[in-house]
């Protein structure tokens, strides 16, 4: 009896729709595009600032356009989604064993979220948001 194993090719992209968990994963991965684009925008802003006050004012004015606001809302949404889902995974990467027992997941996740909120508030306050 001869062997003739049959190999099923994995679809290059369609696997994402096989289960919601893969869609959630790809959303987290794709969020980096928006975060990356926002970083480039900040770099462009620094460039305009170096060019002088008039160029920077024009840059700030351009940020007020509806397209820019839509991008910011989208980028913020993805950044929050990425941060929350990433912090929710931290107990897997950083389990903390105290004595015999492991600290519950919510303690590790919660600590990350609390530090995130505090740092965000600190940065916002430095930026004069309050």
């Amino acid at each position, binding site marked *: 009896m001869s*062997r003739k*194993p049959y190999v099923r090719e994995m679809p290059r992209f369609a696997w994402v729709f096989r289960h919601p968990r893969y869609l959630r994963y790809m959303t987290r991965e794709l969020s980096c595009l928006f975060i990356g684009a926002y970083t480039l925008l900040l770099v462009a802003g620094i460039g305009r600032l170096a060019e002088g006050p008039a160029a920077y004012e024009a840059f700030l004015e351009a940020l007020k356009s509806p397209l820019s606001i839509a991008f910011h809302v989208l980028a913020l949404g993805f950044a929050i989604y990425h941060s929350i889902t990433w912090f929710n995974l931290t107990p897997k*990467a950083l389990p903390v064993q105290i004595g015999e027992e492991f600290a519950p997941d919510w303690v590790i996740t919660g600590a990350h979220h609390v530090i995130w909120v505090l740092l965000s508030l600190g940065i916002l306050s430095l930026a004069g948001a309050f």
Partner: protein
Amino acid sequence: MSERLVEVEVLRYNPETDSEPHFQRYSVSCEEEWVVLDALNHVKETIDPTLSYRWSCHMAVCGSCGMMINGEPKLACKAFLRNYEGVIRVEPLAHFPIERDLVTVIDDFVSKLARVKPYLIPKEDKPLSAGEYRQTPAQLKKYKQYTLCINCMLCYSACPEYGLIPKYIGPAALSLAHRYNADSRDGGREERAQEVAATEGVWDCSFVGACSEVCPEHVDPASAIQQEKIANMVDWYKEHLMPGGAK
């Protein structure tokens, strides 16, 4: 005891006559407490003796009856028919070649498992007269969950990275490597690093986390792999940035 008629659609492949697999549907009169494996056994015993599949213990211990049930990797002995509605689609584990019907070719996993040396490599050999290698309950707890792996390979079928990059060592083998790396009696981490710290080792994992979601024994391979990534990264920094390249 109530009976109901269940339609089971099984992917069939006969390497001697078929050029590609095809689905075959069976109507099975099932009892309330039956699992998918019972339905397959019923088909084999009363309808179609040519149906091929692996199974052994029927109690989620041996890890033989892993298959895709409605597209999700499951142990057929743990998948209760009462939890499914409509036609139940049964296919061989994804990402593995099909040998025949629901039987897959698992050579790739077995060789990868051997490559990570999933056994204790003592730090120093002691003579028998020196007694046992002792361990505290806390040291045991550090790796205990990873000892529960039954090599059923559901995690490989759930892992898109393994599907896309066949060289990837994969969740079960890597979490078993971690099981021994995390054992206080073991001294084989550096030997295993050759496989574990390689690109095809932990670094091909992009933390999808599906492996941990489908594990029937509630092992958390995703956690093992991320912990190994951190340990290997620390090793790398120590080697490249510390004076003398101390490990």
